[in-house]
């Protein structure tokens, strides 16, 4: 019985195959040559805006008309970034880094022992000890990833300070609700009951900026 349009394989395996395409790995070396070693390892390109060949990554190619889309993924030439004008794509992205027409950016930020995906105007809670008090403007420095609608920059493990700027404001410092800590061991007479409240800090992310490295 024919099934039209259904995706039978899990998308994860497909996606990992796409990422593990030979071209992307050689593309990484190209990127590392263009920037300082501590910054992004791969520039995952999403749409046709930053390079025509990239847009063809997910469309049916005219050259290999006989082969099916899913087969021979890692050896298809148009998926290889090395074969395409990757330097042009990357320099195109770099030239647009400071501009405002990137749209809304997200960042993966490491704060208070946890990593959060964050955009501007959204709220996160940091638990336990966090020195900045209410009203303080903070720069969040540990940024692991920044992405826009068209591209993503992945840090290794963290993006450089000159490239990314994430600002936040401390809006509230409270105590959490009462959390019960109950330790009980049966038949041993061991029971401890405690109510605990921990400090919470509310951060509002003000803006995320990508800046051009002037080197």
């Amino acid at each position, binding site marked *: 019985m*024919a*099934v*039209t*349009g*259904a*995706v*039978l394989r899990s*998308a994860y395996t*497909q*996606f990992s195959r*796409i990422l593990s395409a030979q071209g992307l790995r050689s593309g990484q070396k190209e990127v590392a040559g263009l920037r300082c070693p501590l910054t992004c390892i791969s520039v995952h390109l*999403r749409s046709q805006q930053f390079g025509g060949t990239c847009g063809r990554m*997910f*469309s*049916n190619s005219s050259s290999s008309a006989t*082969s*099916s*889309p*899913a*087969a*021979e*993924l*890692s*050896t298809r030439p148009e998926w290889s970034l090395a074969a395409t004008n990757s330097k042009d794509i990357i320099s195109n992205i770099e030239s647009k880094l400071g501009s405002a027409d990137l749209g*809304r*950016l*997200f960042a993966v930020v490491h704060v208070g022992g*946890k990593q*959060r995906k*964050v*955009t501007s*105007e*959204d*709220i*996160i*809670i940091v*638990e336990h000890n966090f020195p900045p*008090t*209410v*009203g303080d403007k903070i720069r969040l420095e540990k940024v692991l990833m920044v*992405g*826009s*609608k068209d591209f*993503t920059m992945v840090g290794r493990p963290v993006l450089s300070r000159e490239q990314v700027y994430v600002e*936040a*404001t*401390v*809006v*509230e*410092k*409270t*105590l*959490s*609700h*009462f959390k*019960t800590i109950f330790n009980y061991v049966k038949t041993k007479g061991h029971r401890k009951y405690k109510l605990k409240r921990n400090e919470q800090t*509310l*951060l*509002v992310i*003000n803006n995320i900026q990508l800046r051009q490295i002037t080197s």
Partner: protein
Amino acid sequence: MALRIDILLLGSRSHCLGRSPHGKMTGRSIPSDFVKNVLQNGIGRYVCQLQRLTVSFCKSHGDSRGARDFVENHMLDFTKKNPGTVVYLKPRRHRNPRLVAEYLNGRTETLNIRNMPQDEICKWVEHFRTRSGVQVVRLRKQWHTETPSIQGVWSPFTNRDSELNVTEFPDAELSKAISAPTATDRVLAMAREIGVKKHEPLSEKE
């Protein structure tokens, strides 16, 4: 009798909000809510949410000694640092000293400060200053965003060839085994690149 009828009329769950049958503090029984920022506070300018602080104390009782010390030593500094907050003093005889904090969203928080030393009262006053008026409940998420997706929400058809939409399944080509280098082959190739030495198998003696 009248109470039971009222409960029946209201509906099944409305009278048990925040209460479980055995008095346990489960996540389901205690009130919970999502994270809230009062009127997008930090986005433009930060505004202190504490509108009014009332220190009610007794002039003579020993309970209020800390409160009286706070009023004498620390209260004026607080008022100077926080010009947006109004501080009222309310001497009330033969009553426990209390801190009453009123917030811009209309909510009130009270704290009984009997037998507290003045530095502890200072800490509690600071606590009230840094709070917004939002009720303290179990938070369902430690974050809140109005724009959860920037690159588009994932679906199984994202990053897939759109030709799959018009493919009839089962497809002979797609059903073929993938002849690309396997994961094992690729790892071995990487090892050869790096120059990892091949380990010889251990002999029986070792």
